[in-house]
């Protein structure tokens, strides 16, 4: 069953006087529980696809539906609420809040829920346990390695138990060992916790961990494999 449905999406940007077309009628589904790597050169529209799915950006035309909700037609406040419940987002440069501890960073999405303080603490501890950082609760980002920071970011992405995890170059700033740890963690989240994952990457090794690899070039799907149609 498709979790993400992208139908006849057109997306263009205005760059100075020029209009740049990113997608011209993209249609694609992403199955529930799938693990998809999106590859392609810079400017091919990989990150734009993540932004459209997360509702951070709107298509020029066409529809984006996630779990039956039409993301492309939601209001900003509906989107914020929906994102808090449905989407976990991981960035290349981790983007942890430097003034918050690992625990507080992970707890951030839970502040938007009605959970009690204890429930929030329990779920935060659980998420940090999943990424193997139970002993780093009170560490600030500056006290963590790059790999640890990215694992905290992943814990933040999964703490609210989202349906879909979107990752934009999650290993882009990591060394080989840390990359492997993060990719193994993503594999576990997909296999053990049945999380649907969409990952943008330039790294072929990272893409090898996915069950499906899509190649995008200038907004056109050039190659596909696995369950994506």
């Amino acid at each position: 069953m498709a979790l993400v449905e992208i139908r006849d999406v057109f997306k263009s940007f205005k760059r100075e006087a020029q209009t740049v077309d990113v997608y011209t009628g993209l249609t694609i589904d992403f199955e529930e529980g799938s693990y998809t790597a999106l590859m392609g050169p810079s400017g091919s529209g990989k990150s734009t696809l993540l932004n459209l799915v997360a509702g951070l950006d709107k298509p020029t035309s066409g529809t984006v539906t996630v779990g039956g909700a039409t993301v492309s037609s939601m209001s900003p406040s509906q989107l914020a609420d929906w994102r808090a419940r449905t989407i976990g987002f991981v960035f290349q440069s981790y983007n942890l809040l430097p003034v918050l501890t690992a625990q507080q960073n992970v707890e951030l999405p839970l502040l938007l829920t009605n959970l009690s303080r204890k429930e929030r603490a329990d779920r935060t501890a659980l998420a940090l346990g999943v990424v193997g950082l139970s002993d780093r609760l009170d560490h600030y980002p500056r006290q963590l390695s790059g790999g640890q920071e990215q694992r905290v970011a992943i814990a933040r992405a999964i703490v609210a138990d989202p349906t879909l995890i979107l990752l934009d170059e999650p290993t882009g700033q990591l060394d080989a060992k840390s990359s492997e740890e993060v990719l193994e963690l993503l594999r576990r989240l997909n296999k053990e916790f049945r999380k649907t994952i969409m990952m943008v990457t330039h790294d072929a090794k990272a893409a090898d961990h996915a069950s499906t690899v899509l190649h995008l070039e200038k907004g056109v799907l050039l190659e596909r494999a696995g369950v994506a149609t």
Partner: protein
Amino acid sequence: MKFLPLVIANLGRHKLRTILTITSVALALFLFASLRTVGTTLDAGSQASSAQRIITQNSTAFVIPLPMSYANRLASVPHVTEVTWANWFGGKYGDGKKFFAQFAVDPASYLKMYPEFLIPEEQKQAFLKERSAAIVGEGLIRAFGWKVGQNVTMQGTIFPGDWTFTIRGIYRPTLKEYGDDSFMFHYDYLYEKYPDRVTPGWYIMKIDDPNVAPQVAKTIDDQFRNSSAPTKTGTEKAFAAGFASMWGNVKLLMSTIGMAVVFAILLVSANAMMMNQRERTAEVAVMKTVGFSDRRIFGLVITEAATIALTGAILGLGAAILLPTVTGFGDGGFLPGFHVTTGTALVGGVVAVVLAIASGIFPAWQAARLPVVQALRRVE
């Protein structure tokens, strides 16, 4: 409440900047409240004055005395029921660092004229009987630790020499605007040492009907118009108001300075908030990605600005309220009853709220309107 740690963590991001901004706001509110209090104190003094007392002074200048012979002539003016007089002494006590007003007064008539000064009867009698006796306000007793029966020696500045007085009484004013920090002694004690120089500095008369005060004042001034010491007469209220009006331009200047300081601090505070927001563009984008709505982001930024402004306001207004008591500012008679009124504290609170909103609204609006994709693209 659950967002409070987030607000506190953000305020602690640049501790020095936050402390300096809070200090600026505190200083602005302190100055605003203190300068406004000068005005309210002068006005309160004027309001507390009796409309039934009129004061005659030399029309040339307040510091030039009037002849003693005027006392009987003033007493015979229609509607005048009582007459008394006083002189400015201008002495120095100890190292002279603590200023307070001293008056040479005609004891019996002066105390009768001012029932607002409450003195135990036995102390009053002791004061009346002894030529070198003095009565002092309880504020001075607190300030110097004097006791009844103690001898106090002052150095005269207008009337040179060492002057020793015996404290025989302590007065308490019925209204704090009258002040509790004056020192009063017998006019005769001053006169006997300087008979050639000492005459009354001003006369105070009680009239039987406040409504005739302007006529009485005109009668008195007309009477002395062509004399060697022409007079200027007005009600005590007008005298106090006139004294306050001498400060008129100063009051305007003070309120202008106060508002200018507040406005300058508003710019400082707004600039600090905007710097904070500019530095956190990526974080705001991330928070929106996590699910924070525009409204929530707006609220968080405004809360930060409000925390800074209100903390500063509490410190500044608190200092303005406590400082006169702690330092004894206002003692000495120029601004008796100097204290921050509830009205001034409330106005200060309103200024703080306006400051919070004005300094936070633009950065909050910017943060709320931040396009996530562009912000993330800049960061990534």
